[in-house]
């Protein structure tokens, strides 16, 4: 809410984002997300079909990293089932191993860097763990009760895999954008709430404790967004952008609950859904400290 992405919003992108939002308004809602969490796959099927028709997956075929990340932020902010996110990332970050089908919505993809664990693997046709490409039929997949059951962790054991080249920096870029996306609606909900909710005779947003918290939330999101935009031009910074978003955005969503007070802690509001998704996205791909420094050094080497 400080500057958003207006500096990079050309006419084409603006139209795509608008249309995408209309699509989500029509076919998706957090109510549907909640049924998906409880195992109702029909809502996923409906959304998936709409996204394929819209050409969402197709868009990522030739998108520049920056545009891909900006679109990912928007998609993620609508909280689709986790498999939508992992499929896009899996498509963008792999080479020709998965053919054209990955951009046609014909393949659902799960991706992870943790041995034997992958998000949404039970919905996937193909699972990418590290540099292992695993087809559904070669794996036994056990979905686990998870922190975010709309992006469920699965235990994955496989009999056979082939090697696949994964652009880890691109994974990091898209994940950081996706995490930033989860922070946006809670911020907007909180600013609205702070304007309306009255306590001690005035809107709570008039009190500095609330006002300054909201400002910090908006700034945090803007900073995490800035870092991924920077990383889009210098991909070696993407792991740092992911690290940053992972640390900052979930806490920003926590603050949105704090601003709402007791009502924020109830399941009747959606805030915790964003929190659960945000944290889950932060665990899809991990870079250890050494990898982060190595990546920074490579980026630094390119500069003065």
């Amino acid at each position, binding site marked *: 809410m400080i500057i958003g992405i207006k500096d990079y919003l050309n006419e084409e992108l603006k139209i795509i984002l608008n249309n995408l939002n209309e699509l989500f308004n029509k076919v998706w809602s957090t109510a549907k997300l909640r049924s998906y969490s409880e195992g109702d796959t029909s809502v996923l099927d409906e959304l998936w079909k709409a996204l394929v028709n819209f050409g969402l997956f197709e868009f990522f075929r030739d998108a520049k990293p920056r545009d891909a990340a900006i679109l990912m932020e928007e998609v993620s902010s609508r909280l689709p089932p986790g498999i939508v996110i992992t499929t896009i990332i899996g498509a963008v970050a792999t080479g020709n191993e998965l053919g054209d089908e990955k951009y046609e919505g014909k393949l659902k993809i799960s991706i*992870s860097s*943790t041995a034997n*664990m992958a*998000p949404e693997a039970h919905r996937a046709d193909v699972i990418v763990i590290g540099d292992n490409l695993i087809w559904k039929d070669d794996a036994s997949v056990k979905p*686990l*009760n*998870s*922190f*975010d059951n709309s992006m*469920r*962790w699965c235990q994955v054991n496989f009999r056979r895999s082939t090697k696949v080249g994964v652009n880890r920096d691109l994974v990091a870029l898209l994940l950081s954008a996706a995490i930033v996306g989860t922070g946006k609606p809670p911020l907007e909900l909180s600013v609205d709430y702070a304007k309306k909710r009255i*306590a*001690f005779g005035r809107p709570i947003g008039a*009190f500095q*404790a*609330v006002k300054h918290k909201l400002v910090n939330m908006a700034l945090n999101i803007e900073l995490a967004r800035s870092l991924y935009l920077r990383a889009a031009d210098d991909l070696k910074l993407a792991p740092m952008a992911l690290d940053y978003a*992972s*640390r900052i955005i*979930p*806490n920003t969503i*926590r603050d949105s*609950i*704090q601003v709402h*007070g*007791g009502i*924020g*802690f*109830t*399941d*009747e509001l959606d*805030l*915790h859904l964003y*929190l*659960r998704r945000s*944290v*889950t996205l*932060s*665990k*899809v791909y*991990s870079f250890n400290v050494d990898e982060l420094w190595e990546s920074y050094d490579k980026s630094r080497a390119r500069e003065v």
Partner: protein
Amino acid sequence: MSESELERFRDYVKDWFIKNAPPEMRIRRGGIGWYYEDPRFIDAAVRWHRTLYNAGLVGISWPKEYGGYGDDVRKELVVRDVALSLGIVYPGCPGIGLSVAGPAILFHGSEEQKRRYLRRILTCEDVWAQGFSEPCCGSDLAAITTKAEDRGDYFVLNGRKVWSSDFHLANYYLVLARTGSPEERHKGLTMFIVDTRSEGITYRPIKQINGRPGFSEVFLDNVKVPKDNVVGKVGDGWRVAMTTLNFERLNIGGAFAYAAASAARHLVEVRRDADTLALLEEALAVKELYDRMLMLALRGEMVGPEAASIKLLASEVLEKIYIAAVSKLGPEALAEGDLFEWSFGYIDSKGYTILSGTSEILRNLLGELVLGLPKGV
């Protein structure tokens, strides 16, 4: 009681817990020990509470005439410390009987109320809930609108309460209601003991983001309350509420402080780095501040507004510990298995800085009542 006697008592309690605590009362790593919130554990928790009471480990410092053991309060500290260190639930009774209703009645109740209610709180024969906040007013308690009308022999209460934890389990309800006009704000309030089975009471459990039905919205529709059930005097409800809240904050804060020390110790078993060291230091400092404040409170009988600092600090450090744990662990913390408890703490602890006064309200209160700063606007 000398230091060495206390040391021996600690050893005794430690052995006793190790021998007597049933498996379901052992807190998993990172848990806070509010297991009674989990419906599966309520019966076991109540049984455990009574075992503790019978063994002389609950109500240690409460007066003998009301069912307590009239003993040294430091022993209470030791018991709580040992229980938390061992990762054992202490005590077990749901609701706010021991932490809030008990002290409110001890300090403001009539002799008859003390005899009638206190012992049954200690034995967990009664479970208490609290009815202060309303949909209009959570933080701004002086603005509540639930009306209590004097009808001669009794009061009639009408209104709506929210955030009543464990109401679905409670048989008594401590209710703050307006006996004066709205303009009087905090001067027009009175505190009542309400039987939850009274005619005219209905409730709607509200699901929390932790997945549990922890609190309820409670509707009071022409509920008759006998005059004997006023705690303190009519119009004196704000003062009773404040003592009560001070006690609640000290007690909840204490539970959080001990949980934080315990969670921090677990965390540093999982990961040792500069962050977790800092959190451990902070958690130990908060726990020590709580111990110090409790000792002071017990020397002077009343707990002052500075008690809010314990709940404020302990809830915040506990939240930070859970955030650190989830942030440092892999996806294993986000799915069923050994580490899943951390993510329950992660979500649950977001409530700790809201319940019983948000961090923002408590900082106002400390600034104004303890530091003497001008009233906020």
